[in-house]
Structures are given as C-alpha cells and as structure tokens.
C-alpha cells in the first residue's frame, strides 16, 4: 500500500535521470520532485531537453540511467501492465492536442472510459458531457476536431485528459500557438482544475507569462541540466545568468566568425558615415 500522506511524498520523483542520443547528452542527471496538489512548471528553451524529460515521465522513452517513480512505482523498471496502471492515474494534454480526427469531441473524451472501464454507455455519455462542460465545450460535443479552433481543440484535449479522473495532469506547451487571451483562458482552466479537483499538475512550457500565472514552483532546464527548482518569487529574482537571459529575453551572442564579420562590417559602416 502507498502511504497517502501528501506534503512530503512526491507524486512524481525523478532521480539522476540521464538520456543520451548518440554522443549528445540530452538530459544529464536530472533530479526533480513534484508534490501532491501543486503546479510545477518546467521551463526551458528549444533544445533544452524538456520534451525528452516529458517523454520520460510519460513512460514513452526509457532513460539510460536513473529512476522515475510515479506514485511510488518505478516506471523505468516496472512491467507493461504496471505501466498501464500508472498511466491510468495520469492525464496528458499534448501540444498539438492529439485528438483522434475520426471521432467527434464527445467520442474522443468517451474513448478512454469506453475502453478502460466497465461503465454503461449512458453513464459514459454523461461523464464525457461533464468533462466537456468543465472545460467549457458542452455545446460543441458533436463537433469534429477539424471543426474546432486551436484553443477549443486544446480544451477538448484537456477534457479527454481528465476523463478518467487522473491524479496527475501533464501539459505539453499549453499556450503554444494560441493568442494571449485564449492562452490566459487555458491558464485559468489549469488553475481551476488544480483548485477544484486537487490534481497534481506538471506543465512543460517556454511561455514565461503563463508560467508565472499558474506555477506554484518553477523548474528551469538548460542543455539537459536542471539549473533551478524554486518558487515564483525566488525565480524572479534569481541571478543565474541563464535564468536572467531567459527572463529578459536576450539572444545568445552570435557565433564568433559571424560576430567578427558583423563587427568589422559595422566598423566599416561607422567609418564611412
């Protein structure tokens, strides 16, 4: 039996997770805890390894070394049926929504219920409707994914992710490709799910604004290293150069060859005028 004491016991627990593709180390000894009932936002630029980390947590890829415990089960060494059991406690909203195009929104939400539970069809229909209502799509149940806007599609993906009443909810880039208003709406939905359903939520994103709006704690990934795991206020005032760079949005210095070319060009330009 798992103990149900929450504050000290992390729901997701990564220890020294390392992944390499060929000679490139994508994740280097990442150790991270996500506690029950919190929203942890994992920040990182492109190529920082955050997608890889997400795939590890979802059990879609196995790390080269290290362990990942979800609710006390080590998903790096468990059997496929144990992994399926763990996955039933998790809901995932993918970046591109990943709705099944041949099914209507309602059928998409109902799919996990139909396949994984013994519930009767009317019950499933009602539960699907309730989830859609929770994300504000109750009126669009009969529509197909191709008929929805980007924001609605993401909401539908959330409805499907919470269909099985998971303890853990994972979001991959919730605000990517959405306008600021719709993105803020989605942030509110994430907060609403945490407050009303008490879910543990892991959000992977590079959108700072949204991260500060929803996060209890922030983690920052840079070139496969976890360089910070701290509260919002600590993060804002952190002096780590990479975090400052990320917060202030300063570009990387251009490569040396290019740099000297640009510099000499600029100098020449200044001399002329």
């Amino acid at each position, binding site marked *: 039996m798992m103990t149900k004491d929450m504050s000290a016991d992390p729901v997701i627990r990564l220890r020294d997770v390392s992944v390499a593709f060929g000679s490139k180390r994508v994740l280097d000894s990442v150790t991270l805890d996500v506690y029950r009932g919190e929203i942890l936002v994992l920040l990182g630029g492109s190529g920082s390894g955050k997608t890889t980390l997400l795939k590890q947590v979802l059990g879609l890829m196995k790390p080269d070394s290290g362990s990942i415990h979800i609710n006390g089960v080590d998903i790096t060494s468990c059997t496929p049926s144990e992994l399926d059991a763990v996955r039933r406690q998790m809901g995932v909203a993918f*970046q591109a929504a990943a709705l099944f195009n041949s099914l209507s929104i309602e059928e998409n939400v109902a799919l996990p219920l139909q396949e994984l539970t013994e519930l009767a069809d009317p019950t499933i229909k009602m539960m699907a409707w309730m989830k859609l209502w929770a994300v504000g799509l109750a009126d669009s149940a009969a529509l197909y994914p191709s008929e929805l806007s980007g924001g609605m599609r993401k909401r539908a993906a959330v409805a499907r992710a919470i269909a099985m009443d998971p303890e853990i909810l994972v979001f991959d880039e919730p605000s990517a490709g959405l306008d600021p208003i719709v993105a803020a709406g989605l942030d509110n939905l994430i907060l609403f799910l945490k407050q009303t359903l008490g879910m543990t939520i892991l959000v992977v994103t590079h959108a700072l604004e949204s991260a500060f709006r929803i996060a209890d704690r922030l983690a920052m990934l840079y070139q496969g290293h976890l360089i910070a795991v701290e509260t919002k206020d600590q993060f804002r005032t952190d002096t780590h150069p990479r975090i400052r760079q990320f917060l202030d949005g300063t570009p990387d210095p251009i490569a040396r060859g290019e740099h000297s070319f640009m510099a000499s060009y600029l100098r020449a330009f200044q001399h002329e005028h």
Partner: protein
Amino acid sequence: MSLLEQVGRALIVWSEDIGALVLQWWAALWRLPTMLPAVGKGTRWVATLDQTLLIGVRALPMVCTMSLSIGFVLALEGAAELRRFGGLIYVVDLVTLGFLRELGALVTGVAVSGRSASAISAEVGTMVVTEEMDALRVMGLNPVEFTLAPRYLAALIAMPCLTIVSNICGIFAGYVFLAFSIEMSFRVYFREVLEAILLRDVWLTLIKSLVFATVIVQVGYLEGLRVSGGPDAVGRATTTAVVKSIFMVILTDLASTWFFYMMGWSAAG
C-alpha cells in the same frame, strides 16, 4: 567504404526491417479477434468495415482496368506465337493459368500496394507527427489494436476478393480478344476455361493474396511508425512504403511460388 562493407550494411538494414515486420505482424495477429463483430470489443468492427471499403471497394476500378488490360495483352501476344503452331485454342489456357497462378494475385498486390501501402503509411505517419500515437499509449490503449489490427483484417478480407475479381477480369479479357479475332463463342471459351482451372490453383492464389495483404499492410504501417519530425517526413515515408511494398510483394511472390512448388502443391510440378 569497401564493397563488402556496403553489402554487410545493406544486409543488416534488411534483417532489421524483416525482424521488425515479423514482430509487428505477430502483434497484429493476436489482436485480430478483437476486431470481429459479436466476438470482439464493442463496435470495433465498424473501423474494419470502413477500412475494407477503403482498401477493397475503392480499389475495384483500378484492379479491373489493370487486369483487363493485362489479360488482353497476354492473349494478344500469346496468340501471335501460338497461331504459328495452330494452337490458338491454347490462348485460353495461357490466359486462365497465367492469371490464376500468377498475374491475378500479383496485379492486385501491386495495385493495392500503390493505393493502400501509401495511404496506411501516410495516415499512421500523420498520427505519429500529431502525437496521436503517444496519446493512445499514455491512455494505456494499444496502438496496434486501434490502428493496425482493423487495417490488417480489412486487407485480409479485401485482398482475396480483389484477387478473384482480377482473375475474372483477366480471363474475360482473353475472351474479348478471342471473340474479336476468331469469333469464339462465350460458351466454348467458358468450357475451355473450366477445363483449365484446377481447384488447387484457386486455393494457392487465395493463399498468395493473403500473404500479399500481410506484406502490404505491415510494410505500410511500419514505414508510417518510423516517421519522426515534421510533415515532410510523412511524404518520404509514403514513397518508401510504396517502393518497399511492391518490391516485397514481388519477392514474396517468388518465395511462395517456389515454396508451393517444392511442397508439390502446385500443378506446375
């Protein structure tokens, strides 16, 4: 890179392909019963029916046209030679046996490779790119059961049917040629055809069509699964799927014909 090295590398790539295909086929085979109406889960057979329409019914015009053309050409070319020996009547045997033993299944295999191996790899590749495959996995649902099994069962139903249609069309084209050239009556032609056909050949051609169905669906699906990156990868996968599928249909045609012959099942022996 030396020649030996290149050959070795190609062999490794090929054996990897074959290994992956066999494993995937085995996984699909186990999931087939869940697709059946009444026995299987819920309304899963609806997906199979949809796919059967796509793979089978939609391919009918193409398979018919190809078989009619090839049957006609076969009769025409054969007649030119056989006429010299006064054996024009053997055109019937040539077309009938040619189609029944070889061309019917092969023409269908090539046509379905072009239509469905590409379609399957594109659909599956798109599902990989849009993370739908990941979504299935993290829901604890088996992608093989949801995406491969219905297509495989559909192909297993559609291919033998298409092969029969192809045979009928090809043999009918032989009649059209003879009716025009020597005004042979349909009744005579039909009797000659019936005399040429052996039930054993019918069984063997149907078995061949099942083998081709397996090759086409598994190759198409595997190439789709291998898609990584963006939408341009889907296009490449589609091309690879068609090329590999046609290539492997012809190779398995050789292998199965040789196998039937060695087992003493084929009338040719």
